[in-house]
């Protein structure tokens, strides 16, 4: 069986990307509304994870394996961002 000729059905990709987009809208709602600052950091973290998922689905849909590199880089970078935000808050608290 040649996997190169198999494609993801259009409706599956459409459904998955729609679900991810709705999830991202909900996370953006929490980011905008979030009563406290930690809530917003949680929402940012979630948006980063959703971006990684989005990229992987897109890689499968377009059959471009190189898009997975983007997912790897986002995963590596965003963690630093979350920790930096939290550390900034902690520093502000101790001063």
């Amino acid at each position, binding site marked *: 069986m040649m996997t190169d000729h198999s*494609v993801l059905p259009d409706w599956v990709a459409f459904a998955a990307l729609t679900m991810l987009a709705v999830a991202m809208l909900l996370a953006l709602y929490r980011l905008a509304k979030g009563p406290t600052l*930690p809530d917003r950091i949680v929402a940012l*973290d*979630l948006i980063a994870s*959703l971006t990684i998922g989005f990229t992987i*689905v897109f890689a499968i849909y377009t059959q471009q394996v190189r898009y*997975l590199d983007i997912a790897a880089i986002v995963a590596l970078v965003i963690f630093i961002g979350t920790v930096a935000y939290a550390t900034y808050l*902690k520093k502000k*608290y101790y001063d």
Partner: protein
Amino acid sequence: MINNLIVSFFVLAGAFFSLLAAVGVIRFPDVYTRMHAATKAPAFGILLFLIAAVFFFADFYTSAISLMIVVFIFLTAPVASHIISRVAHLLNTEIWSETSIDELANDADIIGKKSPAEISDAENG
């Protein structure tokens, strides 16, 4: 054909768990319970997506980079949730009123724990 079915199933399951995380972040009442939704579910969703990618591309490169992403995500997600919830508790973020027990609240083990009055002073000053 069967390969397509497997890939479709994993992609849809991953999207479902990602959506679940977002709904949880909207629905849960306070930061700590939101953290439960925002830590576990997206990591699991990404794992499912990557399983789908490995089945779809079926080559060495995809497997290697997928393994790298999974290991990194699963090592860092707990650290991120730990540091956020710790900062949230230091800042006296409001905790849900039905929380049964909070043993971190008045504990002298944490260095430099301030009272709420001091925090509001620092924020205003």
